[in-house]
């Protein structure tokens, strides 16, 4: 069924037009990589602060508030560029297990960031308010750091598996 969808999508006029332009895929990948760069640096700084490995001069809630527009703008750019790449080469992405794993990890990462941010916006000290929350903050921080590295890895291996 997914195969049939890929066949249909790759035969649409839009997909055919994008496939015909040799410059299109590397150009969109360039924008995709720049957006990953902005997303990952913001996410990693927040994660390391959650884990307690870096303190920085501003509190976590302030870092989060300042990074929020960058994080969600980058995610939107990633979604749009990712969809364009998928429309151009549906079978390369949708039938690829590294791609599927990547999408699953992206959803978990976005969910974690939304949770961290949602709690911080209600209470700037939420993640340090109790021993239990500090522990949860560390788990979330390590999870998000690991997810970032695994997403980049899975993304690159789409080309090889």
């Amino acid at each position, binding site marked *: 069924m997914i195969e049939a969808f890929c066949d249909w999508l790759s035969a649409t006029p839009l997909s055919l037009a994008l496939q015909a332009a040799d410059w299109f*895929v*590397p*150009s969109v*990948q*360039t924008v995709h*990589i*720049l957006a*990953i*760069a*902005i*997303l*990952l*640096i*913001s996410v*990693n*700084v927040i994660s390391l602060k959650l884990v307690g490995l870096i303190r*920085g*001069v*501003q509190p976590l809630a302030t870092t989060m508030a*300042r990074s929020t*527009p*960058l994080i969600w703008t980058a995610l939107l750019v990633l979604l749009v560029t990712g969809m364009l790449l998928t429309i151009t080469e549906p079978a390369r992405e949708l039938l690829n297990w590294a791609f599927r794993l990547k999408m699953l990890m992206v959803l978990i990462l976005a969910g974690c960031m939304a949770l961290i941010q949602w709690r911080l916006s209600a209470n700037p000290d939420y993640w340090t308010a109790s021993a239990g929350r500090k522990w949860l903050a560390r788990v979330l921080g390590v999870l998000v750091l690991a997810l970032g*590295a695994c997403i*980049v*890895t899975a*993304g*690159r*291996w789409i*080309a*090889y598996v």
Partner: protein
Amino acid sequence: MAVERALAWLQDLPLPTQIRESDWMFPTIETVHVFALVLVIGSIVTVDLRLLGFANRDRPFSQLAREMLPWTWTAFLVAAIAGALMFTSKALTYFGNIPFRIKMLCLLLAGMNMLYFHWVGSRNLASWDASKPPPRARFAGAASLLLWTIIVAAGRWIGFTTN
């Protein structure tokens, strides 16, 4: 030519040969390279966007730069080592590749732009640290953003023109 002979010798050394002939070594090194370079570029672009007034506008520039700089240099070291290993595996091919040469040239220019910012762009930092940077600092930010975009694009084009 002497350069070609040196590169041919380099890529026939045991480690480069092993990287070239292995199924998993090149993609693994490439993954490390990509992971490191997104952190290099993310940290640099965050500073550039502050200089240009697109993000972190209300945050003192020096504070943001201090937070980002360790990321930039640590990740750059990792990206450069991984990049050098990839280069040695097909030194002759990369040496003759136009996108590769463009990438190296832009890396050099980006380094010179950093020196420009250090000596000229960041003059009187105390007077604009918490507000809008002067044109010479914004110029360095714009040049950096442009150069790193070309570096990523050229890097991507290497992959499409050497296989």
